[in-house]
């Protein structure tokens, strides 16, 4: 079996969520099939500038074929078109123009799929919202699997993506909340789908004392891992933590990740910047709990890593995925206001028995659902299922409207569409329409 993993960026040193996800999947599926990665020459997701050479190379033993990006992203144009399709009634032509503006526009990659797509048994596309996934799925529909990595953002409400959600052979979801969103926006319940997620490489024996000795941090530790960004909820986190620390001093907030916003100067806040994986896992093992303040997450691998290390999680309850994960795992609490933040944080920090119980649940949850054998098995089962399906059962392609139809301004703003979608954590497995893998 030959598989193509199609992703917008790819590299051993790229730590973006979907990119890392795709690399992990490619490397693990390579144990069971012949895997080739199709990607662009870009490494910067802001500009999509061609920084790597086009052509063929190996990354961690995986063959990677790179295609150049035909044009970099124009930030002004992209912002203008985003406003048009997210906030105003618009047309399909406007959505397609927005997609071209977003990038990474790589016609050669699409051309390769059109010419040589038959050489792959299946093509696994990552991130529904980019140029490569939209046009790649349209030319390789009969063998396309999609890992949407969708969040509750206005792009999900664009009309053009609904056809792809309905047209692929299968969808590999990250969470039940993601599946509920996509089902609601595209009515694709008939398309085979499974909630998979992604595994993580967690060291068996991290050394928390090494972290404490290196940093000199004593007492209870609250840790955040990820880009320090306002979009990740860090401003709210700093505000809440400072208010909490003014009443209950002694707690240290450790920040791991590159800051893209100013970190407040506070004796209880310790930004450590970018650290190695070993240092990261040592710090997570030394922490009493992980805080995940982001309101938009499709999975949060860091959360899974914390659970793998037996650490409870305090998550932003406004993120449906994190809230649902906490409820399903019984391994974390969540907050939606400062009062809840303070109470939940105090509950976890002050109650060691609860902390230990949440950690045990987290580890069990990770072992049950997010170890790599489980993830690989879900992928292989889905591929076997597709192999067994009779030919011709794939969904028929939905052609775009004609020239005039594409320019009819009758589409609702993307944000308005998303706001109408069901919200909140998806019902637990076994009790809802989303409970079983279809």
């Amino acid at each position, binding site marked *: 079996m030959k598989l193509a993993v199609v992703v917008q960026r790819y590299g051993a040193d790229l730590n973006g969520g979907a990119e890392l996800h795709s690399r992990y999947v490619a490397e693990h599926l390579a144990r069971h099939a012949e895997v080739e990665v199709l990607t662009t020459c870009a490494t910067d997701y802001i500009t999509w500038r061609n920084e790597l050479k086009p052509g063929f190379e190996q990354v961690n033993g995986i063959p990677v074929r790179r295609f150049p990006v035909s044009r970099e992203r124009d930030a002004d144009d992209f912002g203008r078109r985003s406003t048009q399709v997210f906030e105003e009634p618009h047309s399909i032509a406007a959505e397609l123009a927005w997609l071209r503006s977003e990038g990474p526009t790589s016609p050669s990659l699409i051309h390769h799929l059109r010419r040589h797509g038959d050489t792959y048994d299946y093509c696994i596309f990552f991130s529904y919202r980019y140029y490569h996934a939209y046009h790649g799925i349209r030319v390789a529909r009969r063998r396309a699997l999609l890992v949407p990595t969708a969040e509750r953002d206005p792009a999900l409400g664009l009309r053009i993506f609904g056809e792809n959600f309905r047209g692929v052979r299968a969808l590999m979801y990250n969470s*039940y909340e993601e599946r509920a969103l996509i089902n609601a926006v595209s009515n694709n319940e008939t398309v085979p789908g*499974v*909630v998979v997620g992604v595994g993580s490489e967690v060291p068996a024996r991290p050394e928390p004392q090494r972290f404490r000795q290196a940093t000199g941090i004593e007492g209870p530790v609250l840790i955040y891992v990820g880009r320090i960004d306002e979009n990740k909820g860090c401003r709210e986190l700093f505000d809440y933590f400072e208010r909490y620390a003014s009443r209950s001093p002694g707690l240290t907030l450790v920040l791991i990740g590159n800051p893209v916003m100013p970190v407040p100067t506070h004796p209880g806040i310790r930004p450590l910047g970018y650290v190695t994986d070993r240092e990261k896992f040592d710090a997570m093992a030394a922490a009493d709990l992980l805080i995940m303040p982001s309101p938009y997450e499709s999975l949060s691998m860091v959360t899974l890593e914390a659970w793998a290390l037996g650490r409870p999680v305090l998550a932003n309850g406004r993120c449906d995925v994190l809230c649902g994960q*906490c*409820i*399903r*795992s*019984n*391994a*974390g*609490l*969540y907050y939606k*206001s*400062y*009062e*809840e933040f303070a*109470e*939940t944080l105090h*509950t976890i920090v002050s109650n060691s028995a*609860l902390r230990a*119980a*949440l950690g045990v*649940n987290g580890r*069990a*949850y990770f072992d*049950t*659902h997010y170890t790599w054998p*489980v993830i690989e098995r*879900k992928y292989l*089962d889905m591929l076997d299922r597709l192999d067994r399906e009779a030919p011709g059962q794939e969904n028929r392609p939905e052609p775009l409207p004609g020239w005039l139809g594409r320019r009819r301004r009758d589409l609702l703003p993307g944000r308005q569409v998303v706001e109408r979608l069901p919200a909140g954590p998806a019902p*637990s*497995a*076994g009790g809802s329409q989303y*409970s*079983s*893998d279809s």
Partner: protein
Amino acid sequence: MAEFNIQADSVDVTRIMEQIRQRIREKRGTDYTEQQIRELATVKVERFLDPRHVRSDLVEHYRQLEPPAALEPISNKRAGRAPGPAPEPVEFDSHTIYMSSRGPMGKLIRLIRKLLNPILRLFFNPDPVVLALARQGEINAWMLQILQQESDLAERVTKQFERAGAKFVAREELDALNFEVLNNLVVEMTRLSLDMKNHRMLVESVAGRLDFDERRARALESVVQRRSPVSPAVADGEVDESTSSTGSGRTRRRRRRSRRRPQTAETQGTGTDNAEAAGTVTQSEATEPVPSPGTATPPGDTAAPAVEPSPADLQQTPSPDAPDPDSAPAPASVSAGEPAPAPVPSIQGPSDVPSPAAAPATERVPPAAPKRDVGPDEQ
């Protein structure tokens, strides 16, 4: 394929979150949002506590509205250019152009003009001119009539507007008065509302105190009943004046309480076990209260004497040094119209064990004072 639910027996995140939210609600008192709490915090409670400072902004709101412009009197006289009298209309017909104002010569001139008329017609036809001028004269007369009618109508409309303007002026003054009345009503309603709340609290306070006193009285009575054996004299229906005096404090309380309650036949029957005692009470109602002598009235008995002892009664209560209770007049004889002794308490305890509070009073009262004043209720 494995499902995404782990049933942890010891930890249920949903329940923990419910408990945490419950704790937050208890701390807040109710589940307000932060915005609501801020709004509540900005409300000045003092405004509602002192009704004198309560002033509705309704009046200011009305006053800030743009008042209608004052009505200007309507006049048909333009300033500085009063039109003069209307000119007289000129009648014009086919003979007018030949007429002359020179008297007798005028007739000759008119005749000559008529004779020369054919010559005139050689130069132009005067008939259309005559016709137009005649028609114009008619039109002028007609317009004058219309103008006169319109003028009358305008005059009537002006008068109506002047009356409406006067009404508007009166209405504005009335509106100001209405606004003041409205404001005063708001203030008064607020004040009444606060007064009502205050009175409600006072009533509740008084009711609470009354309830406390009643429970205290019952407790004291029950204590005394438990400690004191039944006095034989009281048990035989005889009244011990010294006993009544020693238990004066409790007696007074019981009588006050009993006065508040209407005496029904049922309660009277409850208080008097035998017919004689009942009859005694009935006869003494018009004169003075006489307790049922032979019964130990239970706490809260409503058959206690309905007359509150006057201060003189209390002062003239016989002391323990008074004559033997057996020699005291029987209640029946007292009710015959003579001044009665102080009311006898229904309870038995104080006859044997005078209360410390009652002892000094008995020392102040001279022993030989059998006759007492009649209280105002007994007159």
